């Protein structure tokens, strides 16, 4: 990435950004959505969105946050579309965990993941950003466009909801 020059759009190096962020973003999406193919699509779309608007992005340090935001927004939309589709099915099938998850994860861990995905949007996203990417409260707040206080509240509520499942992991 080139250094930022005041009032000059930053030119990002797509290949470097891809190498640096693609895998972790797909994995971030995989916490929220079971199908890895969909996760990859979301991340690819996030890169396209950010690159199309890259003329308006003047701070290279914010690139990871832009990409994370785009992935989370995409995941939220995908989940909402699935919800709408499920409402129109006479019998909505319970989504089964992906085969790779079943193969390697214990039942309790799978249940934790399922419970995490059932949390409200913000709680789910805050916990994923904190416990997968180890972001600080300030970084999470910037990524989600909310206050640090809200990050604390969402994390607290999300963990409280998950507590019974987490006990099963002892």
């Amino acid at each position: 990435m080139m250094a930022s020059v005041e009032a000059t759009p930053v030119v990002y190096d797509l290949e470097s950004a891809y190498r640096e962020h693609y895998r972790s973003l797909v994995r971030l999406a995989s916490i929220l959505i079971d199908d890895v193919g969909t996760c990859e699509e979301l991340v690819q779309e996030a890169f396209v969105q950010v690159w199309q608007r890259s003329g308006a992005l003047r701070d290279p340090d914010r690139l990871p946050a832009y990409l994370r935001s785009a992935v989370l927004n995409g995941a939220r939309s995908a989940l909402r579309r699935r919800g709408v589709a499920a409402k129109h099915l006479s019998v909505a099938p319970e989504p089964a965990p992906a085969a790779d998850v079943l193969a390697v994860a214990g039942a309790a861990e799978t249940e934790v993941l399922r419970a995490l995905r059932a949390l409200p949007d913000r709680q789910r996203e805050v916990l994923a950003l904190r416990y997968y990417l180890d972001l600080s409260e300030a970084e999470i707040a910037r990524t989600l466009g909310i206050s640090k206080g809200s990050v604390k509240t969402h994390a607290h509520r999300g963990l409280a909801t998950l507590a019974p499942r987490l006990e099963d992991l002892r």
Partner: protein
Amino acid sequence: MTPEDRLRQAIRTRTDNVEPSPDGLTRIEEKLMDAQQDTKRNRILMAVGAAAVVALVVGAAVLSQDDDEVNTAGSTTLAGETTTTEAPTTTEGTTTTTAFAPVVDPSLPIFPDPATSRRFDDPVAVAAAWATDVVGFRDPIVDPFQAGDNRSGEVEIRSFAEGAPTVVLVRQLEDDTWFVIGATTDSIRLSEPATGATISSPQTLTGAAYAFEGVVNVRLYVDGVTEPIAETIAMGRGDGVLGDFSSPIDFSAPAGSKYGVLLFSEASGEDGSAIFAAAIRVAL
């Protein structure tokens, strides 16, 4: 092991076994090329459209100069918007106006008003026009159309790049034209009234919201009237957590009004422009 450690372990168990396919970069580059081609194509179409409009206007002006007895209405067309102006006909110096006859079920669309001649042949254009003309977004970021079924879908609109979206629900209600039929956003959730419900004054509005200082602006529009006939605020929470609200809205609808729109929005603390919005169709 703390609960946090156990959550971290469960997440790691999932993520460590997710390995993206190796063609990700190629796919991104292909998508970028497709997007650039779409942009070029849209620009060409817009240029052709603009040229056609200019030609029509110039032609109309020439005809108007040639024949003083013929009144020809000019029209301005934005990308994706078609305007069928009321057709004036002149018979021996007498001008009559043929009213536009709507064929849309008026109980469904919240924009454009089906009783007017304003129409859009593009779902993104109708969503963007509603966001700016009615809700008050300023230079919104409008995402591509996401198809639902073959006649409907949604368009996400953001007030800034990293912002959460307002999801504008759009549907084709005539053969080739698109209407907004509602809008949702995560930060404003409505419980009462339901979409399509009949409301009467005073109407209780309930739901949950988080907004700047908790303030959600509520406007009630009725078809055929540009300005809202009633306004109020609903108080949710301002700390990023959904807070329940219950607020009455008093109104007096013009005689004969049958349908309206309840619009809930959060305004920017900086310039008052809209940041999020939710909207439903109501009957009166």
